[in-house]
């Protein structure tokens, strides 16, 4: 499944070369048809996060202060960890900013 992942608000610093935009191919777990957000988080942690994973993941979800958007919509409105992804979906992980 081809997905576009984007990291912002400083989360990109956890990735190789601080690259924000990633075009990736994520396969469903064996025996399953779909990729859920739960699967994607595991995949991102294993394949993209290069340092300080605790700044991205806490427990089985993202750490507090991170917004997750599926196709420009808050994942709380699409099922959170159980949201099923579709081909060409765009998933954004963004850390909230506090500066001014």
């Amino acid at each position, binding site marked *: 499944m081809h997905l576009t992942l984007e990291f912002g608000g400083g989360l990109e610093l956890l990735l190789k070369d601080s690259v924000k935009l990633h075009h990736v191919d994520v396969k469903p777990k064996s025996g399953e048809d779909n990729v859920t957000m739960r699967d994607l988080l595991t995949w991102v942690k294993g394949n993209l996060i290069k340092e300080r994973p605790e*700044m991205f993941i806490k427990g089985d979800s993202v750490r507090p202060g991170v917004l997750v958007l599926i196709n420009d919509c808050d994942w709380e409105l699409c099922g959170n960890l159980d949201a099923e992804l579709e081909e060409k979906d765009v998933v954004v992980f963004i850390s*909230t*900013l*506090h500066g001014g």
Partner: protein
Amino acid sequence: NGFSTNGLSSDMIYRYSRQLLLPDFGVEGQYKLSRSRVLVIGAGGLGSPAAMYLASCGVGCLGIVDGDFVELNNLHRQIIHTESYVGKPKVQSAAAACRAINSSIKVVEHQELLHPSNALKIVNQYDVVVDATDNLPSRYMISDCCVVLKKPLISGAALGLEGQLTVYNHKGSPCYRCLFPTPPPSAACQRCSDSGVLGVVPGVIGCMQALEAVKIAADVGEPLSGRMLLFDALSARVRIVKIRGRSPGCTICGENSSFTKEEFERFDYENFTQSPMSDRTRPKVTL
């Protein structure tokens, strides 16, 4: 200087003529704006353009809260302050700039750090609140205060080369705690003074905060409630995303919330976020 039947004086009609010409704003919008009271919390990178545009376009009463003093290394982004005000209170500097632009509005100086002990009294004097602060405990405190006092909150943030903007607690939109019930680890709480910010990035967000405040005060257009604007300056990209509505289970704004003014005044936001409200440390830049 007499007021005509539409509630605008002849001076106002001349000064704001370019806004009165707008069918979607017009006399009614200007009149509502002239009766509105807007509070800008923070006279820094976001508050500079926000306060200047709110003053220039004609809000009736503009309040500015800040307890800091102008420093030379603020001036690369805080365009409301001039070099001659370095060392002086930011509120005094900002108010002087706003009065120089528009002497016909009321500008109120709150020269103090906003804190649970004074926030209710100050915020209650206004109709619309602009959060232009630079730290996490203040963001939780201001959101909670706006929930308790039922005020719309225009929240902007900028760091590095990115900015964010949304309207909390307005027309069914969430409060800050609905989105972020648990504070992030303090290692994730970067500030402009630690991590830097390109001068004009808070400029863009601060202008947009003023715009949203004007829209709410004048009751025109669709505010950014339930939506969040994400701005990436380096790639010149903007996303406007749909965010969750008010959470029924929110401890502050939810249906069963029992959060009172008294609890607000006692709440320790610095302890809750493990992060200080006032930032007087000076980072060393060694090159």
